[in-house]
């Protein structure tokens, strides 16, 4: 098989929190539970899920900002230096740039640390041009730029070390619609020119449809469905994916109640909200299975599927 950029197998991250202020009893919170997937070079993988589904935790595990409770992260041959070859773009461009540093110093930092450019001044100008910021503005502070421009600067910083993979953590969700479009177009363009891979983390289904090559749907730390996005949009197998699409596009929700938090759930983790749940769902936890060619889902009663 062709080379992979990185591969996760059986990643778990559990937290323990006190049940209440007085008791010593701890509740186990499964932020990420048995997650495995891989990413091929020059492709985009999108992870979609609501808040608390573990998508950001997963990104931090890949970046070794936190340590997984168990499981293995294996990097392919392209990734030799984690801090150089994988970069991160944050959601909030108002928080991700040091307010006391000039743009040129922000961009200079990764160049200096990894010693990757012969002429750093030129490289900084080149990076700014690459993301569509006038290099003459490099002496300014972040506060002098708009949200969209700051996000471009964050992207420039991520590109500085010529990474193979960029993790995009909700890269556009704090921006206005028109700016969102510009930033996504820029990212797409950069991917083609620089042969980048993206791991896109978002709660917004509508931006992943054509932006990504592969889509994971996560819920409460588990992958419920994974397939090319077209397949999921056209015929979602898991009821959760179906309702995510319905709520994003038609503002209609079939789901009952709310996301259960800090509760032990027996059987399928989605059973508290699933409109189709039956007895079996409360007893046996479904495993992720390939129900159609390259279309995986973890559900006892899959939708849009004629079982042979």
């Amino acid at each position, binding site marked *: 098989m062709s080379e992979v950029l990185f591969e996760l197998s059986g990643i778990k991250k559990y937290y323990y929190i006190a049940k209440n202020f007085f008791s010593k009893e701890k509740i186990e919170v499964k932020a990420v539970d048995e997650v495995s997937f891989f990413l091929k070079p020059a492709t985009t993988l999108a992870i979609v899920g609501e808040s608390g589904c573990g998508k950001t935790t997963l990104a931090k595990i890949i970046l070794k*900002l936190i340590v997984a409770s168990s499981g293995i992260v294996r990097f392919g041959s392209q990734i030799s230096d984690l801090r150089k070859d994988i970069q991160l773009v944050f959601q909030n461009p108002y928080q991700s740039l040091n307010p006391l540093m000039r743009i040129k110093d922000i961009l200079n930092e990764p160049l200096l640390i990894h010693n990757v450019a012969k002429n750093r001044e030129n490289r900084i100008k080149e990076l700014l041009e690459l993301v569509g910021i006038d290099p003459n503005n490099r002496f300014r502070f972040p506060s002098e730029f708009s949200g969209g421009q700051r996000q471009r600067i964050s992207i420039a910083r991520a590109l500085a070390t010529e990474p193979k993979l960029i993790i995009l953590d909700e890269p556009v969700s704090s921006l206005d619609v028109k700016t969102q479009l510009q930033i996504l177009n820029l990212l797409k363009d950069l991917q083609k020119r620089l042969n980048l891979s993206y791991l896109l983390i978002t709660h917004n289904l509508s931006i992943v449809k054509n932006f990504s090559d592969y889509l994971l749907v996560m819920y409460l730390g588990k992958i419920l469905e994974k397939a090319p996005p077209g397949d999921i949009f056209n015929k979602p197998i898991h009821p959760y994916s179906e309702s995510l699409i319905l709520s994003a596009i038609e503002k209609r929700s079939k789901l009952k109640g709310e996301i259960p938090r800090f509760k032990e759930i027996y059987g399928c983790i989605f059973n508290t909200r699933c409109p189709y749940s039956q007895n079996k769902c409360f007893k046996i936890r479904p495993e992720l299975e390939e129900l159609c060619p390259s279309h995986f889902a973890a559900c006892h009663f899959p939708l849009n599927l004629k079982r042979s």
Partner: protein
Amino acid sequence: MIFKELKRNRLFSFGLAIVLAIGLCAIFAPLLTRYQPEAIDVNEILSSPSSKHILGTDSLGRDLFSRLLFGSRVSLKVGIIAVGISTLMGLILGAIAGFYGGWIDSLLMRFVDLMLCFPTYFLILSVIAILEPSLANIMIIIGLTSWMGVARIVRAQILSLKEREFIQAAKVIGASDLRIITLHLLPNAMGPVIVAAILGMAYAILVESSLSFLGLGVQPPTPSWGNILIDAKATLGVAWWLTLFPGLAIFITILGVNMLGEGLRNWEKQ
């Protein structure tokens, strides 16, 4: 722009004016007076304020005005250097505790608690009594016993800054811990630290004056506001100027420094 801000923040402007004035007096002390602070003039013992000696003379006939001017040098020196020592210690220990957390944090913070348990004044008194009283010793001992507030402030600042995304961003590009602390965390934490340092200066000046008053500070004949006051004690009944003016000097300086600090805090809050 700056003038508008200064006009808005009266407290800061007044404080700044007072501190600047005292600072200038200290720097240009030799130019402002005709008398040497240690020059004894037996013809002028205990003369009251006059055109010759604007603030009068003391029991050895030394000019009070020039003694106060030169005394301000001592006070400011103590203020700046002692606070420098305490701020540096507070920054280093607070940053380490806040950044690394865990047992390092617990250990350092318990040490802070321990230091805060000592009655500082008596600690200083006994240490000075063991060592010999000198300006250098005073500055060091004041510095070493007043860093705890700064350490706590720095730690709290770092704890909240640490979660900010630009710190995570610095980690992702592979910046070393030292680089993250000195380049990203500390500059963003400086606001309240500067305020605390300036307020600490007032404390250091007061401590030095009281030590000198007790005879454990700057040793005569070098003038310091504290030891001018000891001399005044003996002649309190006849020479009111000898207690009034040094007292006023201490009062105005502390007031000015405190106003400067509070004014800065108002700014920092915005």
